[in-house]
């Protein structure tokens, strides 16, 4: 449980950090809160020679509005997501999700950027990002680009992010009126990754579902956007029957591993249960 040795850097600008990544290539890793990377380093599953701490880059911080979009700096900690009043009122599902992550100590360090860039299917924020159709603002040696979350995750720890790119912020469009989102997570204890979890967003018009997006955590090598499950509910009345249908469709796209949280078949079923419960909660919130 002792990491290998490494050189440590603390740049103050995005450009500096990008340059360092470019110089050291594959032997370099960014570290933000360190609460995904350092455990891996202690297990010697990650052994970077150069560790670039982005914690000193002021431009990566802050929760802002850009028009109706939310623009959340990559360095925003989970604790800050929980504490932000405007976010809690405008996009409560982020607070709700952050509260389901780990424990207060971890949340004081862990960042939104690290959580989404890590590429671990167990991380909770990526499914929320898929569900809300977020975009990741990225800077590399060639400049800036914006990558849709849907399409960002390719396999466990494999993402669209290039080795020398930094996620600077996450952009999320406000939910349309009459809609609400929810995150349901089944875990064994505080501090545990999901056995299964579901992020949903749902809109209601005239008693019918007019918009629905569903995504899943830790039920495949990547977070999953259950597009068909969401689509199937459009035009239907909210209720146990609709939610069960979405749950079944979501289950169909899962491919979880069997681990100490349970065999694959159980985890798939729990995906369905989480979808049902999240939809029920979102529908209730959308109505009120």
């Amino acid at each position, binding site marked *: 449980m002792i990491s290998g040795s490494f050189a440590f850097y603390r740049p103050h600008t995005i450009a500096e950090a990008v340059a360092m990544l470019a110089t050291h290539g594959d032997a370099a890793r960014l570290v933000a809160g360190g609460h995904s990377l350092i455990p891996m380093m202690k297990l010697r599953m990650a052994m970077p020679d150069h560790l670039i701490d982005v914690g000193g880059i002021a431009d990566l911080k802050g929760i802002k509005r850009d028009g109706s979009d939310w623009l959340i700096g990559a360095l925003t900690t989970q604790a800050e997501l929980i504490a932000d009043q405007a976010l809690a009122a405008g996009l409560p599902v982020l607070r709700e999700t952050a509260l389901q992550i780990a424990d207060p100590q971890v949340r004081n360090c862990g960042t939104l950027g690290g959580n989404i860039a890590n590429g671990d299917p167990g991380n909770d924020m990526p499914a929320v990002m898929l569900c809300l159709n977020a975009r990741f603002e990225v800077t590399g040696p060639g400049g800036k680009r914006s990558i849709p979350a849907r399409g960002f995750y390719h396999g466990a720890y494999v993402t669209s992010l290039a080795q020398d790119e930094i996620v600077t912020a996450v952009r999320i469009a406000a939910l349309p009126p009459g809609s609400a989102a929810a995150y349901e997570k089944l875990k064994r204890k*505080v501090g545990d990754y999901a056995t299964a979890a579901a992020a949903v967003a749902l809109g209601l018009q005239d008693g019918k579902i007019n918009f629905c997006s569903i995504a899943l955590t830790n039920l495949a090598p990547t977070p999953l956007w259950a597009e068909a499950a969401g689509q199937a509910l459009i035009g239907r009345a909210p209720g146990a029957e609709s939610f069960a249908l979405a749950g079944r469709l979501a289950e169909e796209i899962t491919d979880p591993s069997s681990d*100490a949280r349970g065999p694959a078949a159980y985890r798939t079923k729990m995906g369905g249960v989480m979808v049902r419960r999240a939809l029920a909660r979102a529908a209730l919130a959308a109505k009120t």
Partner: protein
Amino acid sequence: MNEMSPVPESRQDREAKLEGMGCRRKRVEDVRFTQGRGNYVDDLKLPGMLFGDFHRSSYAHARIKSIDTSKARALPGVVAVLTAADLKPLKLDWMPTLAGDVQAVLAGDKVLFQNQEIAFIVATDRYIAADAADLVEVEYEELPVLVDPFKAMLPDAPILREDIADKTEGAHGQRRHPNHIFTWEIGDREATDLAFRNAAVATKHLIPYQRVHPCPLETCQSVASFDKIKGELTLWGTFQAPHVVRTVASILSSIPEHKIHVIAPDIGGGFGNKVGVYPGYVCSIVASIVTGKPVKWVEDRMENLSTTAFARDYHMTAEIAATPQGKVTGLRVHVLADHGAFDACADPSKWPAGFFNIVTGSYDFPVAHVSVDGVYTNKAPGGVAYRCSFRVTEAAYCIERAMDILAAKLGLDPAELRLRNLIKREQFPYLSALGWEYDSGDYHAALNKALDAVSYPALRAEQKAMQAAFQRGETRQLMGIGVSFFTEIVGAGPSKNCDILGIAMFDSAEIRIHPTGAVIARMGTKSQGQAHETTYAQIIASEIGIPAADIMIEEGNTDTAPYGLGTYGSRSTPTAGAATAMACRKIKAKAQMIAAHLLEVHHDDVEFDIDRFVVKGMPDRFKTMKDISWAAYHAPPPGLEPGLEAVSYYDPPNMTFPFGAYICVMDIDVDTGVCTTRRFYALDDCGTRINPMIIEGQVHGGLTEAFAIAMGQEIVYDEIGNVQGASLMDFFLPTAVETPVWETGFTTTPSPHHPIGAKGVGESPNVGGVPAFSNAVNDAFTFLGSQHIAMPHDPWRVWKAAEALGLQG
């Protein structure tokens, strides 16, 4: 004169000032613990200290073809690398276990479990040692792996222990297979068989108790410092039994025992994990002798969970014979015990299955028979008593599950079945069918009090209504009520049947009263969080009338403490607590002589009164213990030696038998398998209560561990012996969020043979708690015909159990 104040203090005030037995005195050790000022092994820093780390086996079973340490040695900062080849000339490549077996200190010819110790790297810092551990190269030839204990004694099973393959006689009798360790039998087999032949009703079920780990927050660690000039070894370590470690270290190293100083500083939890002797301790000693420098070894969490002593792994088949009215007439239990690669159980020598013969529990079984087969597998060694007396948790779980299975078969309420079979108050002292003499108890009173406390009939009515609603499809919630009545057997133990490596399991106390009436007392036990510094002082305070605040308790330094067998198996109060009281009484006898001398009366004319000796019938004529202490050093009576101190070595005449009634109410979400403890009521009877607050704390802690075991803990191996989930991500250590709220109650039935009537309590909640949780989960499904759902009751397994009953659509 005696009293300066004009108004004499009331007896009540004098009593209160002592903070003696019965007082909810705050834990004095917490002053340092809560401020981060404890002094643990890893806090120790010595000049020139080196650090050790292990290279460990990747395989569960493989022949070692070669070990190449050259790259590790070449790393700057590495001082030495030890392998079995280095230990062999010193005859230290193997070490004896407490169970009469031997264990490899470093694997030489083959590895027998994953993460087994192969090479010990010594370096100038911890980080270099870890880097070098990675540089050791081992060439293996993989061998077939034996994981399933049920396959251990098949004719074609791979032979694990080639070192003893030809030995047909083990430490506990005949071995009938190279993977067989022992068979232990107790009870009357014929009479039991007859009871089953004549039984109107009989049940039989396999009741497994999964492999778990005590997982103390502080892992196992040591610092060894060998002084070549003096030929003396000082060894600091996480030792629940420091004197035993000193004796073993002397036998192993040939260093004379008086030249070995073993010191156990503060210990961050033991729970049985810190009773045995581990390769890390031995290697730190050897490395210090080799390098001439102090050497520290600190286990990490994964090493702790995957190599130093596990607990349980008992596969119990229990049969009960009964009358149609629910009177039990016989008990038959067979156990398959998985001991891993070496038999390193920490049991008294003559008890290879510990005190498993407490398995008749709290019930009046006329006959019983038990047999236990111990086998080797390719898993880590151990088999320690994880917060329980030796194999008592296993026994209590076995009988409490079996009673519930019988209740279901008879269509009787589980509480009612227990009430019909509990040993009656007038039967004590009670001789059990498997040979124990239970000292005292009032079981019916305890169970009835517990049932009243939770309004048991109302709970059953609510459960019935919920089951009906479930069957109508109106809810997906079920409710289980777990009743557990346990009898513990603690305080090992009498020299007639208890020893460790030939040393009788007495314990000791040495008390010195200083001239000013302040006291230092030392015991042969060793607290790991149990608050001995607080409670032993309370015993002394009540016994000799000196305020607990003026008494310092010291344990763990073998140079100063009298020899004792350490702390585990809830033995401290029954043994060292008794020794403390006995030493006090020696002091009191002398104090009486001194008081009589000072008061110029015959010693028969004075009597002890709270904190003083008083001339009988003349309460104004007295000498306080403070006066007496001063006189003992200043002007001892003619013919008496000066000084006021005493030592007592207490050989208990019998074990003590704490008991309790626990009730757990569980709500189960059938859709996810998530179980939520709605209510948990624990009634404990531990005899005389020394400090009720500490008792409650011990009960809370023990129940939390019981909850962890029943609801989630398991050390899992895959089919090729890879240990799974040996980290706190997967090994269930509940936080405050998961932990239920505990309600506690008590009755008080003193032990008739203990000087202060105390029985020990630290481990009862684990013993009684596990079956209460498991019975609650099982009880939720009994109405659907379920007989036994195995632990741990984590969500997926509960969900699976419901699926097997056709409840998952």
